[in-house]
């Protein structure tokens, strides 16, 4: 076979590979591009649920959303909520992963138990925690009746402060196991000889975890934090099931506000404008952790 024939053969093989990949790329571009074009289009036009793109209004809806105190409140609440929930999930998930890694409980049974919250649909998680928080016969109320009989019930989900805390607890319970699984998998990949060498040098217990294990999986922990942050910024299901954004707007977060505007109030234009603002905020918030995660991996 001549050099020319070999080159032609390699070129043909490359086209075949590209040909097979092309439909996937095309579908991905269409699936990603169409919603983006729709959202931008809806945000600059008067759009209702049944009749999108009725009349061009320029940036009016985006400006209105950006200056609306309920939208700004929801964005701020959503960011603070996401940062706290992501940090708590990452911390608890990492601690659990380290405990599993160092304990005899790291068998398949404990991992399956840990995965259970992940396997539940978010709506089911919301219903479950709503029942736990119910002030008249819920799990916490049952404990209260035993521990402090005669005391007033605690209404978590109808208290302006505790409502979002209740959602955060359910959210952390649901997603911290994801962090655990990711970090645990990374810990299993640590070179055994490194650990043995560290142990010979006198690193044991917490010091071994702090100085050797955690730095070795820092990139994975950072990546898990980013994933968790994005999931928390998109929170909707738990809010819908547990508080409907209330009481008042005490647990109103951006995704809930978008749904309410577009689906409940038929105002797709306003919903799209809030979505664009949310996209901007998500980009700004997630950029630093992504850069840190990349650096850690590097």
């Amino acid at each position, binding site marked *: 076979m001549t050099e020319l024939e070999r080159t032609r053969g390699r070129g043909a093989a490359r086209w075949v590979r*590209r040909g097979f990949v092309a*439909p996937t790329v095309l579908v991905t571009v269409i699936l990603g591009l169409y919603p983006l074009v729709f959202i931008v289009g809806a945000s600059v036009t008067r759009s209702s*649920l049944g009749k999108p793109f009725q009349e061009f209004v320029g940036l009016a809806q985006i400006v209105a959303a950006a200056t609306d105190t309920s939208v700004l409140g929801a964005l701020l609440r959503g960011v603070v909520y996401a940062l706290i929930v992501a940090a708590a999930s990452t911390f608890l998930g990492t601690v659990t992963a380290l405990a599993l890694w160092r304990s005899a409980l790291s068998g398949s049974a404990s991992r399956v138990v840990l995965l259970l919250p992940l396997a539940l649909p978010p709506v089911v998680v919301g219903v479950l925690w709503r029942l736990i928080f119910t002030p*008249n*016969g819920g799990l916490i109320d049952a404990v209260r009746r035993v521990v402090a009989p005669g005391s007033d019930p605690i*209404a978590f989900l109808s208290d302006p402060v505790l409502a979002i805390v209740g959602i955060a607890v359910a959210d952390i319970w649901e997603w911290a196991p994801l962090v655990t699984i990711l970090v645990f998998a990374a810990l299993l990949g640590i070179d055994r000889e490194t650990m043995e060498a560290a142990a010979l040098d006198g690193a044991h217990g917490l010091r071994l975890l702090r100085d050797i294990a955690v730095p070795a999986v820092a990139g994975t922990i950072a990546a898990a934090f980013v994933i968790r942050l994005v999931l928390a910024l998109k929170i909707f299901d738990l809010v819908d099931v547990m508080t409907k954004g*209330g009481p008042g*707007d005490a647990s109103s977060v951006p995704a809930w506000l978008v749904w309410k505007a577009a689906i409940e*109030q038929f105002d797709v234009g306003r919903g799209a404008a809030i979505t664009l603002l949310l996209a901007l905020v998500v980009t700004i918030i997630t950029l630093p952790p992504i850069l840190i995660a990349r650096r850690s991996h590097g």
Partner: protein
Amino acid sequence: MTRSRRARVVSLSSAIIMMTGAGALVACSPESGDAGGEQELTVLFNQSHEGASEWLAAEYEKKTGVKINPVLSPYDEIASNLTLDQQSGANTIDVAAPWYVSLGDLAADGTIQDLTDWVDETPELDVDDFIPSIWEPYSTLDGKVYGIPFDGDTHVLFYNKEILERNGFTTPPATWDEYREQAATITANESADGIYGASVFGQQSPLILGASFANRLAGFGGSFLDDGGAPALDIPEAIQAAQALVDINDVALPTPAETDFGAGNSAWFAGKVAFIENWTDLGVQTESESTASPVAGKWGVTLLPVGEEGQEPRASLVAGFSWVIAANTDKRELAEDFIQFAASSEANGALLTAEPPTGIDPSRLSTLEDATYGEKFPEIQEVNRATLSDALAWPTGKNSTQAAQVLTDELAALIAGTGGTAEETMQRVQEQWETLLGDD
């Protein structure tokens, strides 16, 4: 042609060939939805009308041979589901029964069809038999008919006779002040045993918290709109109604903000609350074997309390549902025939007393006076007659759905203690309603 350009051409060609192939396969598949010429109709129902959907589907098929495919949706998502179905081009829904408040938005979006000519040309519909206070808001927008009443749905006050007797009350409350006093006494006496004075629907949804406000607004003599059709929510009656909701919060089943239909009704059926404002069909359900309620035979029902002694009680049409025809259905005639059957006196009367209960209340004069209904539930029939005179109805024009949500959100903030005073709350609602309902 460069190598990269050739590669792009090959990639694009491959994608087009594959997508065309997939399209051809779909085109070759047998058409769905038409089983060998058998006629079918897909009807979107409120989830709590599941029993009614089964009864209507069975009876209509028996009568005509047409198969009804009921699709169930949460009560507050019927309008948006119908709109998305039509707007997306899926067009799977032929007929729906949304909350009557959404008629204006559905009509403005072109999601439902104008039924005026059909109603005018169809004497069999017997429009004059619909309860007048129900017919107008459930059907008509700017002189055109878009809906036909399905479920009357007026709230009344149910009370547990045993709990009242235990606490020394011989009659149910006539005013909202008495209602709070009796509820407070009962809660103080029996909350340690898990029994409370009242179950108040307060979850942040227009059909739930909005309904509780509407009951009080009717009782204090207010209306959502004034005689000229402008919002009237900053008047003293509306402020009193909002304050009454705040006042009942501390003595009601914990806690109104978390009480939806499920939680509220469960507490009633279990005998854990003395009062509940509910649709008249709650009495039918309480007596039904399906709920196995210990309250069966031990309850009473009366008209909603009023603001002051001697004031005329007024029915509150909080959550009625109307039949509509989807804009893009190609089964208009079949849809009309089904609605004519489902909204008939015969169907409405049968649904009132069907077992298991269907959740349907009277929408017609003839069914309100139905002999079986009167024989089985004379007390409920009596309180339902309140709809014969004036009744409070929500606005139904464009943006009414959003207006109802605005009111609900503000009331929820007021009850949670973050909305300021009742007066400030209703002032904010008034301003937002003027903007929303003032739009074209």
